């Protein structure tokens, strides 16, 4: 351990945020900048009969109005992942137009953009655009979308399936094992749609420079280089070297800011048309209607147990809604980010998952914190607890019976699952036991018994999750349909004075990279953190990158930086050896200097840096400069795991659930900054609890969204949550240099089933075995009455 790694170093980015001096995209004003507003469909499915812009064009301040009939209507944004049908048919990828031309396919789809001098003028003029629609029947539920007479989202295909997919053992074999099982537990439910709700709404400014023929797009994205690639190569067909993407401070993402959105491409196109910068910032109502949603799986699952409670087989069929178009990563979410986790932390010998992914007349669904893994974990952790309940076993006992035994990935091999992956290292029992101790499980059971006698409904719920992150080995994901590599780039530039600039393709939108990355860079170089600056979020500054999602920044982005540091130290040693007139092998590097072993002779990092740039007395044949860039392509995913335990009390008269305690013991591998890891867990848990108790995007039958504002979409507020009791076990990742696994999504993945298990446990004696999320008071109350 060095001076900084593993310490709760306070964040360097905080000062600007706390003083209101952050630079979020909407804070940027460019000279001659115009503002824009969209005309959006009020229907989920309709023919556009006509669009009349004559009145709107005459309105004050209007600069331009574009509709799908303009050339921009011929462009569309691409999907970044291809999952073909089981029978070999190519994935059905509809065109996702920048503006709808003939038909709208989800509520809120853009039909026109109005550009004006001020925002008020743009909004006023947008109200004057007359659109005549013929409303058509819509389908919003993924299961119903596959029914015979369901309205088609895209007329070019005979049904609504975008693709289907399966993973695991032979279905017949799994079915046969279920036939013979001692007990079969069945679950049928919908993992409901969620709105990610980063607090900063999406915001873009496109600025085309006529004289230089260059585009700059300021965007609230999690992955600027990926946006540039998709925008240039696929959406607009413009040369990549003419485009700069800037993504400074971004107010949260949670997945929703990964995707290349139609507005980004449209603004970029429009800026060239009008020859001026154009800004658009979503309001919250638009965010509900147009930000990619999460989840939306309709699930039917059966898990078979033998008489001792050992799992013998697990068979699942899912209908996973894609929305009206395929968003950037959408096909990967219910497949490779989902099915590959069906092993969980258990030795289940036979697993089969079948996925049908239909289009629905709704906004596209894509990755939302955890992306496929919370859905897998919810199913596994609920069904094993339900199985225990039905068989009269304790939820701890059944887990201990089924756990994969500990393995470190070094002495013992990684664990090969039935669903394609090889886990890197894990000790699931240790995390469970630590969490049970922290909670005081035995005492709680006594307290629960006593409370029940008093008529109070207390419950405890356990979730022993695993997730796959550190996305991802390019060759593997390439074989699975990714249309991009998922490596990361890290450049370390030692300045002549020995100060260090690090350029990372990872992107911070709350994760604190400016601090954490500087911590390990300073330690590895043996210099002070103050001498290290972390730069991100500008494609003109950072060579390349794939961005931040899937808890990959440290394990993939951090490893790329480490690779460059290794190169710096290797070259530095050559320069140092020359200066010290010693052999390289005789040098050792520590505390910021190279020392000739066994002597006092040394040269500092700063001296070597200066020599590299002022190479008057320099090793022959060595290039000047001390600046390296590296690509790091991970050898495997990483597999954080842990145990989450929730304690709830249900009000017997109203069904209201009070979350009283939440214990989270997470193993995220080595920890660079425990303060930040805890913060990530707190936030993830809050989102997971939100799904369990409060959140749900509801479309009515006709495709209208009836939860389109904070008055109707319930997100956790401060008084919905207790303090989160966090702790860790540490099982280092064996295949990356920092030994880290990733902490961004763990909280959201592990927590949801813990809460639902706790509520079901509180009501178990009333015969309740399952409740549909979110566990609103009326839902719980109804379950209690049956």
């Amino acid at each position, binding site marked *: 351990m060095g001076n900084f790694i593993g310490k709760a170093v306070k964040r360097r980015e905080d000062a600007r945020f706390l003083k209101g001096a952050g630079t979020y995209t909407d804070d940027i004003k460019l000279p001659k900048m115009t503002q824009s507003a969209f005309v959006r469909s009020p229907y989920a499915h309709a023919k556009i009969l006509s669009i009349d812009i004559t009145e709107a064009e005459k309105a004050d301040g209007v600069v331009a109005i574009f509709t799908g009939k303009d050339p921009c209507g011929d462009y569309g944004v691409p999907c970044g992942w291809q999952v073909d049908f089981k029978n070999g048919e190519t994935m059905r990828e509809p065109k996702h137009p920048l503006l709808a031309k003939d038909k709208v396919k989800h*509520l809120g789809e853009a039909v026109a953009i109005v550009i004006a001098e001020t925002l008020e003028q743009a909004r006023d003029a947008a109200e004057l655009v007359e659109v005549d629609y013929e409303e058509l029947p819509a389908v919003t539920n993924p299961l119903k979308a596959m029914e015979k007479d369901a309205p088609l989202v895209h007329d070019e295909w005979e049904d609504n399936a975008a693709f289907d997919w399966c993973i695991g053992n032979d279905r017949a074999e799994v079915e046969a094992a279920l036939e013979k099982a001692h007990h079969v537990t069945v679950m049928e439910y919908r993992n409901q749609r969620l709105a990610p709700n980063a607090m900063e709404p999406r915001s873009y400014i496109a600025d085309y420079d006529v004289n230089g023929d260059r585009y700059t797009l300021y965007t609230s994205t999690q992955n600027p280089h990926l946006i540039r690639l998709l925008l240039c190569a696929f959406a607009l067909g413009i040369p990549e070297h003419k485009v700069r993407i800037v993504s400074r401070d971004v107010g949260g993402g949670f997945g929703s800011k990964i995707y290349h959105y139609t507005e980004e491409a449209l603004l970029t196109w429009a800026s060239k048309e009008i020859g001026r910068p154009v800004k658009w910032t979503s309001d919250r109502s638009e965010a509900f209607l147009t930000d990619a949603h999460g989840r939306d799986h309709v699930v039917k699952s059966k898990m078979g147990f033998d008489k001792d409670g050992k799992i013998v087989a697990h068979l699942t069929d899912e209908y996973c809604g894609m929305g009206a178009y395929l968003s950037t990563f959408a096909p990967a979410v219910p497949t490779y980010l989902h099915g590959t986790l069906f092993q969980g932390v258990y030795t289940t010998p036979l697993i089969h998952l079948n996925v049908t992914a239909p289009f629905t007349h709704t906004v596209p669904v894509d990755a939302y914190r955890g992306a496929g893994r919370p859905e897998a974990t919810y199913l596994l952790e609920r069904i094993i607890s339900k199985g225990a309940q039905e068989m009269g076993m304790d939820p701890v006992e059944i887990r201990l019976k089924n756990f994969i035994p500990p393995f470190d990935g070094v002495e013992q091999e990684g664990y090969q699952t039935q669903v394609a992956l090889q886990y890197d290292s894990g000790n699931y029992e240790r995390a469970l036991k630590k969490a049970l101790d922290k909670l005081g499980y035995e005492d709680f059971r006594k307290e629960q018994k006593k409370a029940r006698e008093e008529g109070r409904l207390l419950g405890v719920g356990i979730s022993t999750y695993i997730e796959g992150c550190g996305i991802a080995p390019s060759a593997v994901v390439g074989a699975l349909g990714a249309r991009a590599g998922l490596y990361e780039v890290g450049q370390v530039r030692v300045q002549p004075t020995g100060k260090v600039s690090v350029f990372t393709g990872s992107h911070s939108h709350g994760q604190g990279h400016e601090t954490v990355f500087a911590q390990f860079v300073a330690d590895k170089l043996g210099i002070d953190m103050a001498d290290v600056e972390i730069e991100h979020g500008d494609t003109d500054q950072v060579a390349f990158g794939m961005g931040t999602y899937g808890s990959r920044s440290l394990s993939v982005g951090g490893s790329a930086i480490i690779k460059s540091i290794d190169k710096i130290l290797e070259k530095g040693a050559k320069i140092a050896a020359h200066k010290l007139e010693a052999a390289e092998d005789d040098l050792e590097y520590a505390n910021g200097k190279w020392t000739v072993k066994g002597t006092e002779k040394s040269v500092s990092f700063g001296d070597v840096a200066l020599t590299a740039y002022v190479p008057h007395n320099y090793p022959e044949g060595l290039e000047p400069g001390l600046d390296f860039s590296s690509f790091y392509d991970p050898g495997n995913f990483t597999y954080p795991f842990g145990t989450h335990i929730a304690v709830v009390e249900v009000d017997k008269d109203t069904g209201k659930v009070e979350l009283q305690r939440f214990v989270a013991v997470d193993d995220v591998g080595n920890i660079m900054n425990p303060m930040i890891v805890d913060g990530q867990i707190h936030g993830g848990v809050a989102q997971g609890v939100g799904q369990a108790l409060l959140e749900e995007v509801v479309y*009515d039958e006709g495709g*209208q969204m009836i939860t*389109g*504002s904070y*008055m*109707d979409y319930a997100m956790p507020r401060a008084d919905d949550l207790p303090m989160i009791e966090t702790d860790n076990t540490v099982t280092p990742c064996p295949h990356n240099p920092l030994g880290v696994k990733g902490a961004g999504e763990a909280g959201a993945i592990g927590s949801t089933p813990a809460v639902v298990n706790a509520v079901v446990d509180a009501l178990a004696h009333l015969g309740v075995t399952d409740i549909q999320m979110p566990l609103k008071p009326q839902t719980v109350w109804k379950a209690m009455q049956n």
Partner: protein
Amino acid sequence: MKIKGNYTLSTTPEIFWQMVMDPDVLEKVTPGIKELKALSPDNYEALSEVKVGPVRGNFKGNLSIKDKVEQEGCTLVIDQKSKMGNVIAEIVMTLAPEGEGQTKVEYTGEAKMSGTLASMGQRIMSGVVSTLSKQFFKSMEAEIAARKA
């Protein structure tokens, strides 16, 4: 969204019926109506501006009356468009004499909304509809009083 309610007016069904069938009266008493243009008998084009709480907007579209049974009731068909969304509604209105020269009006129907109107949530919209209905009957009552005087 379900629409349901009743109101007792201090006039006979006969007079109330005459008033409801008179576009001039309707234009006067219906909240927010700026213009009511008869396209054909029982079929109007309406321009209105509605402002209740957070719901505010200019509506434009058709208003027609069907299934008329004199002094007993009719069905109102409303098809209104606005920037905040569109409303299509069918409301069945029945009249019954009550007490001394009074009329009990019962109305029941279903409204389908789209766009912001729908997403702002039904609990607000039903409040808006209830406020508008109250305003309608209050204005009607005032008109009746004016006629009596």
